């Protein structure tokens, strides 16, 4: 909801003109970025999982360097270790040995470049997607196709959600982050609209449950990726810290997040 209110403000200034400019930006030492999203899709066993490690790079560089040669494992609450193997030198670490348990606590260990990283998180459940509809009067101008994915929030739980909307032609991934602050216990919807989307195209909608900390993290991250950078409605950019710490050198902290969730995926064709 709060992103919506900001959206209302920014859409006002329509006199504006935009141009891409060349600009010099500073660069900092590379940091480890941990994308450890363990998703147990409904109807699967959830044994196959992957963790992606990359490094930060100067802002205008076109490639994102992988973090290769790391030791990656997850320990469950019974003390069982699951090792993740790197696929070549891609920074993508995979396993087929993972056992998901809703509500259980897991610990992630990473050894990279002689430094040791750790994170702890609980596996979240999520409500299924009840129904998907589309309307042709979406967007603020009322001329876009808008997709609504309905779900029912459980009452009094303080739930939070991540929705992913995937378009295929061309490929694009849009995320939406929601909390149940205003809608606790009700059926409500996640929505998505795009001026380029056509009738007949297919999209995939996925949803995941978020812990309160994961919600804060993803909410900030989505703000950060859309901050205007100067101008009247800018907020100060935040250093978006996830739940991973560097045990060897706390100042060289990693970016990214370790989260685990039940998940649903729905394919939808706009007819």
């Amino acid at each position, binding site marked *: *909801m709060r992103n919506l*209110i900001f959206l*209302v*403000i920014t859409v*006002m*200034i*329509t*006199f*504006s*003109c*935009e*141009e*891409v*400019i060349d*600009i010099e*930006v*500073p*660069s*900092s030492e590379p*940091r480890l*970025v941990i*994308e450890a999203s363990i998703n147990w899709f409904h109807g699967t066993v959830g044994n196959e999982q992957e963790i992606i490690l990359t*490094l*930060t790079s100067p*802002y*205008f560089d*076109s490639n994102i360097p992988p973090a290769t040669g790391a030791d990656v494992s997850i320990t469950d609450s019974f003390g069982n270790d699951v090792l993740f193997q790197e696929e070549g030198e891609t920074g993508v670490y995979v396993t087929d040995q993972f056992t998901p348990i809703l509500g259980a606590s897991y610990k992630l260990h990473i050894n990279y470049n002689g430094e040791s990283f750790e994170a702890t998180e609980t596996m979240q459940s999520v409500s299924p997607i009840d129904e998907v509809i589309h309307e042709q009067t979406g967007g*603020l*101008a009322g001329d876009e196709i*808008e997709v609504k994915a309905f779900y029912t929030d459980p009452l009094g739980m303080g739930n939070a959600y*991540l929705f992913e909307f995937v378009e295929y032609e*061309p490929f694009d*991934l849009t995320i939406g982050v929601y909390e149940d602050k205003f*809608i606790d216990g*009700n*059926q*409500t919807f996640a929505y998505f609209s795009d001026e380029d989307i056509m009738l007949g195209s297919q999209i995939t909608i996925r949803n995941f449950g978020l812990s309160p900390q994961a919600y*804060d993290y993803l909410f*900030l*991250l*989505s*703000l*950060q*990726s859309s901050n*205007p*950078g*100067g101008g*009247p*409605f*800018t*907020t*100060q*950019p*935040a*250093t978006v*810290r996830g739940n991973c*710490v560097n045990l060897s050198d*706390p100042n060289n*902290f990693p*970016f990214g997040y370790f989260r685990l969730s039940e998940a649903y995926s729905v394919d939808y064709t706009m007819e």
Partner: protein
Amino acid sequence: MSLRAWACSFVLLLGSVFGGHAQNKHTISGIISDAASNETLIGVNVYFPNLQKGTITNAYGFYSITLDEGTYDLLVQFLGYESQSIKIELNKDIKLSVQLVENTEELEAVVIITDIEAVNLRSPQMSINALTSNTVKQIPAVLGEPDLVKAITFLPGVTNAGEGSSGFNVRGGSVDQNLILLDEAIIYNSSHLFGLFSVFNPDAIKDLKLYKGGIPARYGGRLSSVLDIYQKDGNSSEHKLNGGIGIVSSKLLAEGPIKKEIGSYLLAGRGTYAHLFLPLADNNNVAYFYDLNTKLSYQLGDKDNLLASGYFGRDVFSLDGSFRNIYGNAVFNLRWNHLFSDKLFSNLSMIYSDYYYGLRLDFVEFDWQSGIQNFNLKYDFKHYLSNDLTLQYGLNSIYHSFNPGVIKPTSTSSAINYDELTKKYAFENAVYFEATKNITNKLALNLGLRWSHFTRFGQDNLNKYENNLPVVFNSDFQIYQSADPASISHYKKSDVIATFNNLEPRFSASYLINDKSSAKVSYNRMSQYLHLLSNTSSPTPLDVWTPSGSFIKPQLLDQYAIGYSHESNNGSYSLEVEAYFKAIKNRIDYIDGANLVANDAIEQVILNGRARAYGLELLLKKNLGRLNGWLAYTWSKSEQQTPGRNATETGINNGKWYRTAFDKTHDFSAVAQYKLNERWTFNSNFVMQTGQPVNYPNAQYVYNGLTIASFGERNSFRLPTYHRLDISVTLSPRKNFDRKWQGEWVFGIYNVYGRKNAVSIAFRDNLDTGNNEAVKTSLFGLLPSVSYNFKF
């Protein structure tokens, strides 16, 4: 000066007040007004050239001066009016009201009223700028709509965060630190359409004063400045109508007598055309604002004057089927001027002010309303004890009621649950005493003391935290996080949950170096009990005000300023140089990623920090002649800091000082008017200033398909330098001379050389190329405008 030393000198001064003796002294007093409209005039010089003594009229046109018995020449002077010289036999108390005739000579055009006589050089008041509504109207404005806030940003020490941003910043202070008074009523949001226009209709305004420093004790409640605006009373001689038709807005003002020379009314309305700002196809989209100014004034005999005034303004945005957004100020006040004697003027005001914000998002069936209201009682006295001593004293009580937000579903099928954020209440009281004393012919002092008291009343739910810390520092992640409340207490509306009080000494002095130049110093302490919760670089209309209380302390400011003024022989040129330093305690700052919208536990995302600002201002004016105007230059710094609360915490921005969003190192403006002849007048202004502080990313990374920019320390980069030239031409048709209907055309160009000044530089991932790019947004290119104004 320590408080004790200050109190001692105050007592000494009081001693000199009551120890003084009068022999064969008489008082001359009265009202100065405009001969045509009977409108009272503010700041008129009432001057005795032989004695080199004088005074100026107050906000209600009243003056009073006490002199030894004798025969004198009295000179009444006001820029834009013909001076009057009157011979006076002062052998008893005299009532003398004077009507001045507007100057119709070629040199009438007057830019700033100030300092045309040594009277003002001698006045201890410094750091003040006055503008008439004529000046405001002459400055070329965006889309031809004259704008008061735009006009004051051309003065030294006044900036705003950038094009299209709301409000204004005075001497490095934030927007919410300006006390904006319209006929003594507090205005909470001075902007229409996100800062494109201000809420003040220049046609309905008589006079304004901006106090940037040395703020007298009669004002309080905000730290940085006082913008004191007076509406016209209305013409009590004859009915008049004037108006204007422009490309974005139209306006109409009617005024006239209720009872000739006794009572008058004024009614002014202004509005923009609905679809202007949204060039979208759908006809059900609207974006506009309107405002209404009203005033009634009525004289009850010689000693009493009743004034009622009101303002109502709203901005309306609506996109069909998506949302509807309405917000604005409303004020109403009733004032009673009473003369207890020819030396004691009083004004009693009863004021209601209100700010409303409403937003309905139809597509999620969500309705949001928030606002602030206050009831304000003021009783002010001005006591003209002798020619060398004036006392001002009074009291002020404000009851505040805050509605931080009510959320409602707009239909029964809506997923939104009804929710009401905790309403807050507070009572703010102050008493003040102020003495202006000429110690010698060269030295004048203004000493003042204000005692302010703030009571925060109970609210339904008040969170309590472990160790009383609503924000905790997570040492693993080195970040600040919201604490969970340990318990919740319930209070009644009549319970007191926090009180504060502050003594606010004010001091200013002027020393006349010679007839044409003077030096001034001032010190003022201010306290501010209300805070606008805003973590954007300029406030947005939905930002809410919150009172000081258990977790938010009042902001306190100390400001020191020194200045030098000089005038050329005939007063046609003047130069003012001032330097200031200010330090602010308890400036709130927001933890990284703070969410302020609909946050019912705002204490969980804020920390108390501090701020400082210092600078040097130069103002060179040419007051008379065909060509007049001013050059203003300011060098300044404005910073804030929030250190860690103990050794293990990092503070915000690693505890380092960082630039505020409105820190502008250099700020230069030039305003010029050239009156060619009766028909043609040319106006122009030029502004050049350091770009707004911003953040550039020092790295990127990818997470969950999003490209994320990562930033270093706050505000360490800047947008490119901003500069712009505007011009306008006013044409009064020849036909005007022999008819009642007076018309004029105003042609203007905003941003003459079409510079694309950056409003923002955004960093984003281009979906088509897959590469990151920097995107500069600029708001206005060259914008021509035309408007037609009339009166009859």
